């Protein structure tokens, strides 16, 4: 079931300088987000991903095109109806954006106070959320006394206060250290799995997409340039920008300078196997090499876990009697896609 649907959405901002041309932040973007999924939008800064997120909770309104939440076009809603809509959509931020003048409990209570819920109900709900994010002992603390990870947990609790069906995460882990990032990603996975909240995250870190999302949308210059299941896009990136993002977490097939450097250090023939979960049995590849009495050494690459499935490129240097090496390559090639670079480099 489609929960969020953007159809041909364009958003342009007035020129920042007099006489300049308007800035097109989002350019004809269409996007469907299925209820219960975790969708990641990745792109460099200025790609328009932040604007897309703000179109979903109508903090920005599109110049053209429609945004539908649960089948309802929200681009024509009046301010009052938008406020009701927003209590069904939580949002968390890179800089947390907690209210400094309110305690942790006060921050979490804010969306409920705004929605006019009775005081007793608010107290119960806040206690529940504090428990969920593991900060029950910090209820009376002020944000200034919290660590970054704790602040983001408060941000998540606040975003979930009104039990929204959608959670928007704006670079939610970009200001955090690696350990804290994992902690927050783990919490987001729980929000999705235990509460069934549909999550839309934007990030410039492919690793966040890899470990959190089911589906990835790659944006560049306001357009969607690639869109698909995370495993498919990561194992077979088509657009150059996507390849750069994927290259940041998965070692690519060595080429050019990289290949020359490997060749200088390693004698023998250099071949790269692509390991794709399901299609390739790693052990059969190695067994085929061993059966032909070929010595092999792993010189580059590795395997990555993408949503429980394995993917990677393994670059090997093979040494042995030339005829045996040739036969081994053919035999192993039957088990896995194999790339051998031109030996002259």
């Amino acid at each position: 079931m489609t929960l969020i649907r953007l159809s041909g959405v364009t958003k342009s901002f007035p020129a920042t300088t007099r006489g300049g041309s308007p800035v097109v932040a989002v350019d004809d973007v269409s996007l469907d987000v299925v209820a219960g999924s975790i969708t990641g939008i990745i792109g460099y800064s200025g790609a328009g991903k932040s604007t897309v997120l703000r179109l979903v909770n109508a903090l920005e309104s599109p110049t053209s095109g429609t945004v539908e939440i649960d089948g309802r076009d929200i681009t024509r809603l009046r301010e009052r109806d938008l406020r009701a809509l927003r209590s069904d959509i939580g949002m968390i931020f890179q800089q947390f954006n907690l209210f400094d003048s309110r305690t942790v409990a006060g921050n979490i209570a804010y969306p409920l106070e705004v929605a006019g819920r009775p005081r007793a109900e608010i107290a119960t709900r806040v206690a529940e959320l504090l428990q969920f994010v593991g900060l029950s002992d910090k209820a009376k603390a002020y944000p200034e006394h919290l660590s970054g990870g704790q602040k983001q947990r408060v941000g998540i609790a606040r975003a979930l206060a009104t039990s929204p069906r959608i959670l928007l995460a704006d670079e939610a882990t970009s200001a955090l250290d690696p350990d804290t990032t994992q902690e927050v990603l783990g919490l987001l996975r729980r929000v999705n799995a235990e509460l069934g909240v549909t999550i839309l995250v934007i990030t410039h870190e492919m690793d966040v997409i890899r470990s959190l999302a089911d589906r990835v949308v790659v944006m560049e210059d306001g357009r969607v340039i690639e869109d698909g299941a995370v495993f498919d896009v990561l194992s077979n990136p088509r657009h150059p920008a996507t390849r750069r993002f994927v290259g940041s977490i998965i070692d690519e097939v060595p080429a050019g300078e990289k290949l020359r450097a490997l060749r200088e250090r390693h004698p023998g023939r250099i071949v790269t196997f692509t390991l794709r979960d399901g299609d390739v049995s790693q052990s059969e590849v190695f067994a085929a090499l061993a059966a032909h009495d070929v010595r092999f050494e792993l010189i580059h690459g590795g395997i990555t876990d993408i949503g429980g499935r394995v993917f990677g490129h393994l670059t090997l240097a093979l040494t042995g009697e030339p005829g045996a090496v040739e036969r081994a390559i053919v035999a192993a090639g039957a088990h896995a896609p194999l790339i051998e670079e031109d030996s002259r480099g």
Partner: protein
Amino acid sequence: MDRLVDLLPELWDATFETLYIVSLSLIFGGLLGLLLGLALYATRPGSLFPNRPLFGVLNVLVNFFRPIPFVILLAAVQPAARSVGLPGIGPEFGIFAITIASLFAISRIVEQNLLTVRPGIIEAARAAGASRARILFRLIPREALGPLVLGYTFIVVALVDMTAIAGAVAAGGLGEFAIVYGFKQFNPWVTWAAVLVIIVIVQAVQFLGNGLGRRLLRR
């Protein structure tokens, strides 16, 4: 020195009169300045209720009144005071003039302190479903309370200063006391006694304001 001892009851009265003028001016000027400051903040481009024409008018208004030296403004607003049925001299006139002078200064201080609230805070509140009016009147002032208290402390000190100047038009208070009994009667002891009391008032206000501001300053 002996003369000063004789004048102690008058000094005492003048001190109370100064406090009276300062506190009423602070209430009127402070409230009006807060409203004008909120209006400046809210109508500026990119803010909660952007309105370029209104912002332009308010901005020019504030820029027009704010640089007028207080002694000159004091004389200039006399007809205005009389037209609303107030006397052109005395403490009530002092309060009237100080309110006008301070409200423009206060509005700028309020505007600037509200601007210290990060835009992300507003975005978070809007994402939480808060109305823009609720954000403007309830959340923003609360988030900026620490700097606002420090700003108002600064203004109270300026109000004490203005009260003393208003003494020149018989507005009462320590300013008039210093001019009438000290300056005009060539008695520096009396003048310095008034100065001393003013210093004590200013220090007390500064101490309280800083303490309160620091307690409220959370970031």
